[in-house]
């Protein structure tokens, strides 16, 4: 089973690697680049929200911090556009993570719902500071990032592979956390935080790490994004829509799973970019995004993919039941099973 899954993932990765060579069209690689970036963001967000149960609506701030870190580093050290700038990504990620530590310490002191609210405030404070720390960010004028030397359709290719690398890195981390003892502890915190503490888990440290790790990845994503755009402004660096996007993608793909948020990100961002490029809608984003999100939360709170999977498996069960209706003893509920289990020992 896992071998099949691994083989499938390997195949997907191979397809992703050769993809730009098959579809060299600039529009296609552009859509693919954004889809990969947002899938990475959703995957990172899921580490905190999906595993730990703390929904942050402010982690887009770390995307912005990463972007500004890139812009400021390039400016201060007069770094030229080109492959070299990509080496700054881990630095930008670390800077974002460094900001995340004190912010996590403050926001995680509160209960879950107050936490959500504080993270929203966190995003706006970030935006406010970006608008007003003129010496650092040039405020509303924004900053220019170095122009890469690649021209035409070739421009997208290095960015595409960077985004792919970020996605692989984030997904691997997410996968590893999901299977580690650390991840198990996070999920225990999600289910019952007090009890987890009572069974010896250092909930404070676990939550803080789960807060900072996504910030690291989001910082790198932000740096890539704004390097690609060539400029950065406060309202795009600290954009509440990005928070909603990460939540929407994770929820629709399946919160708390490794693959769900990635699939959600690829599909939703891919579709959005495609429609944006073909129909050029502006203000409709907000309405479309909001409406889609409401539909997902209210109709399929477990996510589109898990819901479809559940419908499919119940359909299959029903078919199997009809075929095997001759042997009724098989379906015993867990309650009956447990009592028998308990008394027999």
């Amino acid at each position: 089973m896992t071998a099949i899954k691994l083989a499938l993932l390997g195949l997907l990765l191979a397809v992703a690697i050769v993809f730009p060579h098959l579809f060299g069209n600039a529009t296609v690689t552009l859509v693919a680049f954004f889809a990969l970036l947002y899938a990475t963001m959703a995957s990172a967000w899921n580490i905190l929200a999906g595993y730990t149960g703390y929904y942050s609506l402010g982690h887009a701030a770390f995307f912005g911090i990463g972007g500004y870190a890139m812009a400021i580093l390039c400016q201060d050290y007069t770094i030229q556009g080109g492959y070299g700038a990509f080496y700054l990504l881990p630095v930008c990620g670390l800077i974002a993570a460094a900001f995340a530590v004190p912010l996590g310490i403050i926001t995680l002191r509160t209960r879950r719902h107050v936490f959500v609210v504080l993270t929203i405030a966190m995003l706006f404070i970030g935006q406010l500071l970006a608008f007003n720390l003129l010496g650092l960010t040039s405020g509303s004028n924004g900053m220019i990032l170095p122009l890469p030397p690649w021209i035409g359709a070739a421009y997208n290719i290095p960015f595409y592979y960077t985004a792919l690398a970020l996605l692989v890195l984030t997904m691997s981390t997410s996968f590893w956390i999901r299977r580690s003892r650390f991840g198990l502890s996070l999920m225990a915190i999600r289910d019952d935080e007090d009890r987890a503490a009572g069974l010896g888990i250092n909930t404070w440290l676990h939550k803080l790490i789960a807060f900072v790790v996504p910030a690291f990845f989001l910082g790198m994503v932000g740096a890539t994004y704004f390097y690609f755009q060539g400029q950065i402004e406060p309202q795009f660096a600290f954009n509440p829509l990005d928070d909603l996007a990460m939540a929407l993608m994770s929820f629709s793909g399946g919160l708390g799973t490794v693959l769900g948020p990635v699939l959600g990100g690829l599909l939703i961002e891919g579709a959005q970019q495609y429609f944006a490029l073909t129909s050029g809608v502006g203000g409709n984003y907000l309405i479309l995004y909001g409406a889609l999100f409401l539909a997902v939360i209210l109709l399929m709170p477990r996510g589109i993919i898990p819901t479809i999977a559940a419908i499919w498996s119940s359909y299959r069960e029903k078919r199997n039941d009809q075929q095997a209706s001759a042997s009724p003893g098989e379906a015993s509920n867990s309650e009956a099973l447990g009592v028998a289990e308990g008394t027999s020992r």
Partner: protein
Amino acid sequence: MSMLVVQQAAKRFGGIAALDGCDLEVREGEIAGLIGPNGSGKTTLFNMMTGYGRLDSGTVTFRDSAISRSSPRKVFGLGIGRTFQLTRIFPRLTVLENVHIGARRRGLIASVRHWKAGREHQRALESLDFVGLTRLRDARAGSLSYGQRKLLEFASVLAAQPSLILLDEPAGGVNPTMIELMAAKIRQLNQNGTTFLVVEHNMSFVMDLCHRVTVLHRGKTISHGEPTFVRRDPAVLEAYLGD
């Protein structure tokens, strides 16, 4: 030799004195019982002993270290495990994962490894086997019945191999077969050296199981001693019948 000692514990919630200077002693290697009418402060005392709240005054000492101001995590680290009256498990984790939370070893290396890696896995499986939930190891804990949840909670505490286990109404709301099973498990563990403190409403369960019993009434200790003594203590009879 005494293992856990509570002296003059007092705790008020608003205007109500939940604990009003009660004393309790648990000796190494025994099964101690804690009984009392409804609202006598048993669960409050349990919470105060395990870090889920702070006493207004009084002390709790475990093997000569004061724990009345320790966090639940610290208390657990000293080797005191507990269960809850309203069973607390992790509903979205599987049965085996639940037990692993208790069995879990601390430290960086242990945290980054696969959750099933290491010797703790064996211990988790043993605990699960001990309470008889092995066949349900991959079921979601949230899908278990009430009695099974009690067993699971017990197993996840056991997996940590604590030296003292506090059980809050282990026989509450479960069928008679399960109660007998529970008592047998407790005795078996006790023979292997684990000390118990059991809060219980079910009088016959306590009287049969416990070596010594403490009786709380309105936040005060009104009697303590062997079950045969406590059963005949006029103060106890008055507390139970007088109200």
